[in-house]
């Protein structure tokens, strides 16, 4: 196995007492001394600082934004051209079968498109963009770290360091200045809370993290709580809940496909797998990603098989993520079930250690989001 990479915050994680684990080729903090449960609750009540520097940051540059946007629309089923200046959108790369190759965030920065992709997929994503975007320069940003500051007190904490943060709305992006350092900031995240993702030069990343952690309202949060936070928010983890074999329709992510790219839109289709995806949007898919609330306290973890009743041998689906939700004070799962069992309120059964345990199909998020729209 090749050596694990370190983010610019590695020494700080160790100093803070983090337990480090391998994740997507990086040595990352899974938890700090506070522990997963308390980190989760602290983030929802105050603010949490996450190191997400392992993710890929990419600049796409062309003659002008519209040239880049048109090219990028050939890889994703999103309305990129219609995205406003300094606004960000959720998106995903699709393949010819309509599956999802990665999910991502992209922002209109005027003279370029700024894209953030998952760590485990970034090499393939960059290769895809280099091959698929003619006339566009694909620049991987390797000299900047990425921090996330999430939670109801994030606004106050960041505004005190980098004025301008408070006036941003959800999914705005801006360049803010901190001690003369340019921060590329978006008001977004992966927790269901208000908050920011902050791209900072590697050389300044640890200092910025320390400045944020100096506030009593901020604690460092590891990958463990990041996972329970995102799951309570109903957000997909690429590789678990969505992958190259799940389509956006099956994954219930069609909200991410804007009107312009749908059948009848100004620029309908024209992305990989368009035929399959647009047909499923019209006719429905045979399975669907749903939320599940187990009736007992036992979590139904990833891989747990699902059944329509207590005795049937025929599976109707599988859990793709499952954990205990500290804020909802109970277990939660998401997974795929046959279309017939996907309606909210449907009672299904899961095989937990050889026992059939009941669960209810519920709407997500499990916990309402707290965004500054």
């Amino acid at each position, binding site marked *: 196995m090749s050596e694990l990479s370190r983010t610019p915050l590695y020494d700080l994680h160790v100093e803070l007492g983090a337990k480090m684990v391998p994740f997507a080729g990086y040595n990352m903090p899974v938890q700090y001394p506070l522990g997963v449960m308390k980190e989760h609750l602290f983030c929802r009540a105050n603010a949490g600082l996450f190191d997400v520097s392992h993710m890929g940051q990419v600049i796409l540059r062309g003659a002008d934004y519209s040239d880049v946007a048109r090219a990028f629309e050939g890889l994703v089923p999103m309305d990129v051209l219609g995205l406003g200046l300094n606004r960000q959108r959720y998106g995903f790369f699709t393949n010819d079968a309509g599956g999802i190759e990665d999910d991502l965030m992209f922002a209109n920065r005027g003279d370029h498109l700024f894209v953030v992709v998952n760590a485990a997929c970034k090499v393939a994503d960059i290769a895809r963009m280099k091959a698929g975007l003619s006339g566009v320069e694909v620049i991987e940003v390797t000299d900047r770290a990425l921090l996330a500051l999430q939670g109801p007190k994030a606004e106050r904490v960041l505004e005190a360091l980098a004025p301008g943060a408070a006036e941003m709305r959800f999914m705005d992006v801006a360049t803010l200045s901190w001690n003369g350092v340019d921060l590329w900031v978006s008001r977004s995240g992966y927790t269901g809370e208000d908050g920011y993702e902050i791209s900072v030069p590697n050389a300044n990343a640890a200092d910025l993290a320390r400045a944020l952690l100096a506030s009593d309202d901020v604690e460092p949060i590891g990958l*463990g709580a990041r996972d329970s936070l995102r799951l309570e928010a109903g957000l997909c983890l690429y590789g678990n809940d969505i992958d190259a074999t799940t389509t956006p329709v099956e994954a219930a992510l069609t909200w991410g496909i804007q009107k312009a790219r749908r059948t009848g839109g100004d620029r309908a289709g024209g992305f990989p797998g368009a035929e399959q995806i647009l047909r499923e949007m019209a006719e429905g898919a045979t399975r669907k990603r749903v939320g599940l609330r187990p009736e007992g306290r*036992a979590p139904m973890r990833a891989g747990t098989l699902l059944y329509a009743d207590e005795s049937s041998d025929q599976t109707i689906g599988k859990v793709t993520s499952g954990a205990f939700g500290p804020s909802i004070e109970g*277990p939660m799962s998401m997974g795929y079930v046959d279309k017939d069992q996907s309606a909210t309120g449907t009672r299904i059964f899961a095989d937990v250690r050889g026992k059939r345990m009941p669960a209810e199909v519920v709407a997500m998020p499990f916990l309402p989001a707290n965004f500054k729209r």
Partner: protein
Amino acid sequence: MKFTEEHEWLLPEGDLVVVGITAHAAEQLGDLVFVELPEAPMTVSKDDEVVVIESVKAASDIMAPLDGEIVEVNEAIVDNPTLVNEDPLGEGWFFKMKLADPSEMDGLLDEAAYKALID
């Protein structure tokens, strides 16, 4: 107090022993979110899987440390699994057993031997 290589502790209490998991085990598991206890009384053999615990990370089985009968279980940790993290050697106990052969306690690890195991 005696210990097993499976990170359980046993404390004699009258003619019973109280069984729980060590502070080291509780820390390694992380915050517990679910505990499923057996129904007492229950006759068990050494290494029977008698308790299921789930932490924020994963599920684990707790095994009977010796042969005997489980005569009482700690319902408080079902209602509040984090008791196991907060006080693993006290209020976070799992069950009380009547050992088939109390002399088998002598074959378990003492504190020094357990400490050597986890260092």
